[in-house]
């Protein structure tokens, strides 16, 4: 029998319990989300987005990927460039990216930067030739690879998105969801260093999602939970970011909230 050591599992728990560096803090350049075809013109992520209005990528059309990054205030200008072509034969390499200028926004304790990249998509014929299942199923996943740098750190990014034959394909209009931060409440100060932070999802399809919390400082107890705790280092102005992405649709959402502890 392929057995598993119980004590090994507990050891793993112990080993994982006290990481020194934390993934949620904006201490250096960090990607936090990629939105596929985000609502055009939206720049204020402190308001809830309406996910249902986002058009899905369709074969022969274009796709816009909106990359979201965080980093310390004063972080260098970001540069996003296409990465090496995807070596896997089952996916078509998307290399014709047109990358827009970075759009940085300063928040308390961190900088939030968005960069949009647009590409033309293969036609349905090209997709069917590369991936025969596309003709029958009506959709395929296309891989992208890009590299981001702030001048001091170079980081490859990879992911994929779903491209549909047309908007009539089952699933093309499903799995769109939105989100909101319920607590802390916008424009209200908090009174304790240990906060319970919570969020809500509009996830009518019940799609498996992956949640991520990011902060300008402090520690999040469980950054994958919709409701968890955030321990602030002390009085001051902070920024809290909530992200969510669908494991199947690759859709996502993001909320940013300024938090003040007097």
């Amino acid at each position, binding site marked *: 029998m392929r057995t598993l050591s119980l*004590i090994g599992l507990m050891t793993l728990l112990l080993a994982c*319990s006290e990481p020194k560096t934390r993934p949620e803090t904006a201490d250096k350049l960090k*990607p936090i989300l990629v939105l596929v075809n985000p609502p055009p013109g939206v720049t204020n992520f402190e308001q809830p987005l309406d996910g249902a209005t986002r058009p899905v990528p369709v074969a022969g059309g274009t796709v816009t990927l909106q990359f979201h990054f965080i980093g310390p205030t004063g972080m260098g200008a970001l540069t996003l460039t296409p990465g090496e072509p995807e070596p896997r034969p089952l996916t078509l390499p998307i290399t014709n990216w047109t990358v827009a200028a970075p759009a940085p926004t300063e928040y308390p304790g961190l900088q939030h930067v968005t960069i949009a990249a647009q590409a033309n998509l293969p036609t349905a014929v090209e997709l069917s030739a590369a991936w025969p299942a596309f003709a029958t199923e009506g959709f395929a996943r296309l891989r992208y690879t890009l590299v981001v740098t702030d001048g001091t750190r170079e980081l490859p990014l990879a992911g994929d998105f779903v491209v549909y034959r047309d908007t009539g394909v089952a699933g093309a209009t499903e799995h769109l969801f939105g989100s909101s931060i319920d607590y802390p409440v916008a424009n209200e100060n908090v009174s304790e260093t240990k906060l319970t932070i919570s969020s809500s999802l509009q996830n009518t399809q019940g799609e498996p999602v992956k949640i991520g919390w990011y902060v300008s400082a402090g520690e999040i107890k469980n950054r994958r939970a919709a409701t968890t705790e955030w321990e602030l280092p002390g009085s001051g102005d902070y920024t809290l970011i909530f992200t969510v992405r669908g494991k199947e649709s690759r859709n996502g959402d993001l909320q940013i909230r300024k938090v003040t502890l007097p």
Partner: protein
Amino acid sequence: MLMISLKKMQNMTLLCCCAAAVQAVSQTEEPPPSPVVTTPAPSAVTKVRLKVMAKGSGRILKRAEIRVGQEILATGPDGTLELDVPGREGSIQVLRQGYEAVFIDFKDLRGKSSYSVYLPPGKPDDSEVVITGQRRPETSRKTVTVQETSRIAPGGDPAQIAQLLPGVQSSPGRTEVVIRGSGPNDSRYFVDDILVPSIFHQVQNLSVVPAQQLTDVDFNSGGFGAQYGDATGGIIVLRSKDTLPENPRTEFVVNVPFYLGIYHERPLDETSSIAVSVRKSTIEAILPMVLPDDSDITVIPLFADAYARYLTKSETTNHKLTVIASEDGLTLSAPFDSSTEVDGKVDVSFKNRFAVIGWERDHNLGEGWRYRTTPQYAYSRFQIGFGEDKVYITSNEIQMPTEFTKRLDKGRNLYLGFSPQYTVGKFDITAPAFATDDPYYDPEDAPRISANSTFSFSSFAAWSSLDLQAGPIVYTPGVRVFKTGFVDEVGVDPRLAARYPIDANNTIKAATGQYSIAPEPQETNEDFGDPDIGYERANHYVLGLETRWTDRWITEFQTFYKKTYRLVVSGGPNNYQDTGSRRSYGFEAFIRRNLTEQFFGWLAYTWSVSEERKSDEDDWYTSQYDQTHILNLAGSYKISAYWDLGTRLKYNTQSPYTPVTGSIYNSNLDKYQPIYDNSNPNSARAPVSHSIALFATYDSLYDTYKLKYQFGVDYLSVGRRVDSVQYNYDYSEKEEMSSLPPIPYIQISGEF
């Protein structure tokens, strides 16, 4: 969070240790009563029946010496003596070898019809070496008695002794046995001739069979005989008692914080006896009390076992009916980065259950022939779940290993054996599909494949071996022929072992042979694996020198080379392929001080290299089961009849890992994926590891029962101990980790 809870547990255990120590100190050895009698009370001679017994057990002592003045008397077979108590002043002296003398005043005996005398144990004797019996010679076998394992093994448990022997790797927290670079699943475990899935629980250092029922442990690290098959690594056998108890005996054990247990054995009549044992973990009840209220972790480890043995003996035939049931389990709910639930947690469950029943019949046919057959039935269930992934395997197996032995001249034997077997079971697997050609593959995001199937197959094995002699060399050729139902080939494994006594003290030992192991049923399943996968094979080569320096000191040096091929590796179009191979070679030194009442211990050192490759076209690289240096020093010293002190020191090279050269951010999963240095697999290691265990045992004796306190601390170190290397969330930094803190423990057991 769990760190905090462990600290609480340590504190609690330390308190218990202190309490035991205080009690121990208050019950130190008392000097024998003074023989001086001052009260003048001459009176008439009276009679009293003395009964002499051992203190702590109430066991009757035959032939105990009673001295009354110049007269020397002795107790009879029932431990009693009718004594005339003189009317004068004075005392009697009660003596027996191995016990302290006891003096009793005449006045204390007068007026009584019977008087019980309990003799405390004497000082440990270092002049007598405990001799153990010899079994069929095996080149790489080490036999350790339960008396010995109780002195030095982790937790005093027989099954854990393998961790201290040459050729065995170990890492903190690892309970599986890795022998001479083989995988942990390449070895087989037996209780006598009963095949069991494992011999120890995966929580706590505890064998599945109570130590009270065992006599010794056979550890065979390679080059073993034809009677063992379906193994390319090693063989570990727990040998059970085949003697009848003289008196009923009950023992309980309270191990803080891990488990409770009770054991009972009794003779049924002059030819039969029965023994039963039940143990159950308590850690699952204690952990929730010590975990912080705001902890996000719910962890419930548990284990239990039950054992029953019926033994009957006659002049020509012994029968042993054995039932063993064991369960290990863990349920865990904790924050995991891969969680897709809104609570951010993943549920993990693990359960490993088995039950076996075997009936051993050992019969002397006369004229040098005897046979032993053990028909047995085994049920096992292995279940693991991680989020939505699961592996669930059950099997029911019946087999009947039977071996005939013909005693030839000069201790040589002929062995003929066979074992038919039938297995039926099912498995249900949901797991991520492999995609080894995808550079961004991550099991978290991989498509799931599911397989659900039943299986049944019959197997058969037959073997023979014969001791031959050429001059002083005794050599044993053997062969094993076998067929496993779902493998489309008949296997033939030839084996050869030889012993050459150079002189009375030095013996050269050598062995070679082919060893095979059948693949797992799911690896050859049409839906999930590759039906063309055959037996994994290994060739063993062993050469060694055993020297008996004195009756106390023995050394053994061995070199070994082992080549394993047709190794099943993940990958290929059918998830599994048998294209891998592994080679291991090394040197072992074993210096052993034989058991006396006072001192026992050994030093075991292994230098070895283990390499593997996924196919013949690939280059060799360091195996995950490679640990270059492993040193174990273990010893126990009995300072009095009541106190026993011991220590274990371990020093070993850590297992290798493949270094990470960078990372890539996977935006689908919001996580960083490592970029491994695949041109140098397993080319890095954590710094060498060492750990120290200190332990003590105190026996608190009462007239007819005793309490035994065992306490100690495991995982001590000099300076900071490093157990592993862990990367941070984006693989930009790595940190040396000590996964287990020093763990104090206390165990209280009672014997009635």
